[in-house]
């Protein structure tokens, strides 16, 4: 368990989605295992509350389940009137959590991506790059698997000098989008800039072996990019069903072939977005049904949520805790 940083400037993934009854959504982070309930337990003392907790990493491994059992137990001990429900990204996580007695529902993180922030490219957009890879320049992201793709655009978080140097060595021909400015300095990309970069690319890449649901995969989908992924654990394969995606072996040639195949289809981004959008809509529909039933059972309020709007962009968006704090003000 990490040391809690409760400063107002610190960022967290969480929000209050309902004041009455009191319901939050957040992420299981190292120092905030139960989201806002860990950050500000005093705000939830003495009253019933419900906390939906998403994961930042796959929960399928046995040791991870044991950690989550401990996290939930500790939180319940601190807040006996609170109900904690984990948001499993995969049915297998659901089985593992259920067996361990961790209340959960299947609600893959992709559900929560705010598609309004990621407009798809127009069908006539020029695809300057064969593929895009939105991923930290970290070894677990396996950038080397993109080595045989003729042109790749990389979007990433702030790298160390060593990480950047290694990535340039692995992919010497790649376009390092965050450094593509006159100063050649790292520039953070907001959602609009990510969408713009993705609009110049034909295919989205997912190359890690294990992680969480992978927010970037969701962004590819809503931007209308077909996806090439390696086999993985963590939940991104949930929406990789059908002809608009490929799941391949983890080798550069397989990845490059799949990218070429999908690029050759010249798919209409709007059609790709709609294809995945219908599946996300299905999952959101069932998330709401289940959540309303849980809220009725645990907090005694019927039909609390009539639409998915309160959840759009949450908890996949990190905000300053000073901003999150305003969620507790009456609306």
């Amino acid at each position, binding site marked *: 368990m990490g040391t809690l940083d409760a400063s107002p400037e610190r960022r967290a993934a969480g929000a209050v989605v309902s004041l009455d009854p009191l319901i939050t959504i957040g992420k299981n982070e190292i120092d905030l295992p139960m989201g806002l309930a860990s950050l500000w337990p005093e705000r939830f003392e003495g009253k019933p509350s419900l906390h939906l907790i998403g994961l930042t990493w796959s929960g399928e491994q046995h040791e991870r389940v044991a950690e989550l059992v401990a996290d939930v137990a500790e939180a319940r001990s601190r807040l006996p009137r609170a109900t904690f429900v984990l948001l499993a990204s995969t*049915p297998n996580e*659901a089985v593992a959590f259920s067996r361990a*007695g961790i209340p959960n529902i*299947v609600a893959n993180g992709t559900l929560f991506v705010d598609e309004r922030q990621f407009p798809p490219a127009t069908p006539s957009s020029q695809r300057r790059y064969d593929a895009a890879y939105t991923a930290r320049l970290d070894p677990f992201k396996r950038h080397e698997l993109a080595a045989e793709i003729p042109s790749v655009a990389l979007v990433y978080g702030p790298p160390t000098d060593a990480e950047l140097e290694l990535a340039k060595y692995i992919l010497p021909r790649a376009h390092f989008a965050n450094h593509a400015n006159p100063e050649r300095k790292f520039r953070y990309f907001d959602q609009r800039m990510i969408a713009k970069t993705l609009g110049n690319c034909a295919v989205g890449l997912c190359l890690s072996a294990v992680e969480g649901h992978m927010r970037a995969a969701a962004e590819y989908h809503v931007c209308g990019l077909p996806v090439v992924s390696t086999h993985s654990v963590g939940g991104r394969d949930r929406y990789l069903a059908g002809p608009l995606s490929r799941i391949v072996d983890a080798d550069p040639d397989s990845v490059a072939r799949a990218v070429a195949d999908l690029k050759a289809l010249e798919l209409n981004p709007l059609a790709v977005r709609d294809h995945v959008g*219908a599946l996300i809509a299905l999952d959101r529909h*069932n998330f709401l*049904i*289940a959540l309303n*039933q*849980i809220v009725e059972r645990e907090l005694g309020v019927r039909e609390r949520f009539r639409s998915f709007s309160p959840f759009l962009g949450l908890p996949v968006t990190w905000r300053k805790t000073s901003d999150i704090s305003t969620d507790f003000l009456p609306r």
Partner: protein
Amino acid sequence: MEQERRVKGRVISIDPLVTYSQREASAPLGIASARPDAFSGRRALHLVGLSQTIETDNRHAKVARDLQAADAELPQSRFVILTNTEFEAYLLSTLRVAAMPCNDITFIDDGAFRPTETRAEFDAVCDTTAIPRERLDLARDAGNVDFSELAQLHGAARAALVGRASVGLWLGGAEHCAIEYLLCGLPVVSTPIAGSAQRYLLPPFCRIVPDDPAAIAAAVQGFARARVPKPVVRGAMMHALRFDRHNFLIAINKLAKETFGRGPVFDSFAPFEGGLPEPRPLDEALAGLAT
């Protein structure tokens, strides 16, 4: 007698040993609980679906007790409950029951229900099987409605009757009816009815309206005027089914890998297509399994 007990289940794979059954009074955890001797000493994975909702009357607690007994009797077996709703899986998770949402409609024989070329004679078709009169009365203003007892019909005859309408009106009764309408290319109008079919009843080809004749009529007429091509409606339903089957396959292969240490065991959904046969003698359900 044992041989006369009827169960709804089958052996999906013999090596490794995987079964798929439905929970019923005679077999609370499927065929493994009906004939534990057949599975004693063998590593096995048992998928158990639910024939009735467990959302009410604390029924999930009964599942937990039955599972506890089965675990004690068959320690080498692994049971996973396939729930029809997310909420059922949630309830079971509060009691340490290994469960995952997997609606039994996932296994429906989608080939048995297809759009016909028939010109629509009716605004809507409404299955009247086991539906109270007062429920059917809600459709009194819906226009030209074909009230038929669909349970009497099967296969092509059933699809042909459904195909004579523009809209499927589901006011209760057999939940698969709503899905059959969609697979036959009919958009569906319904009211808030709890149950497993809810999973697939969302826009744009489904409208859930209040229990009010005017609202039902407006929804039916709206869809009838829209004349949505049947292949488009069926296509949307198949998109959802393929999605659920895709994720079921991923899950079942991971469960098999965890249970047996090898995999993937299933390279397609084919072994699961069509779901479960009607209840049949236990010996028949266990056919192929050396005991």
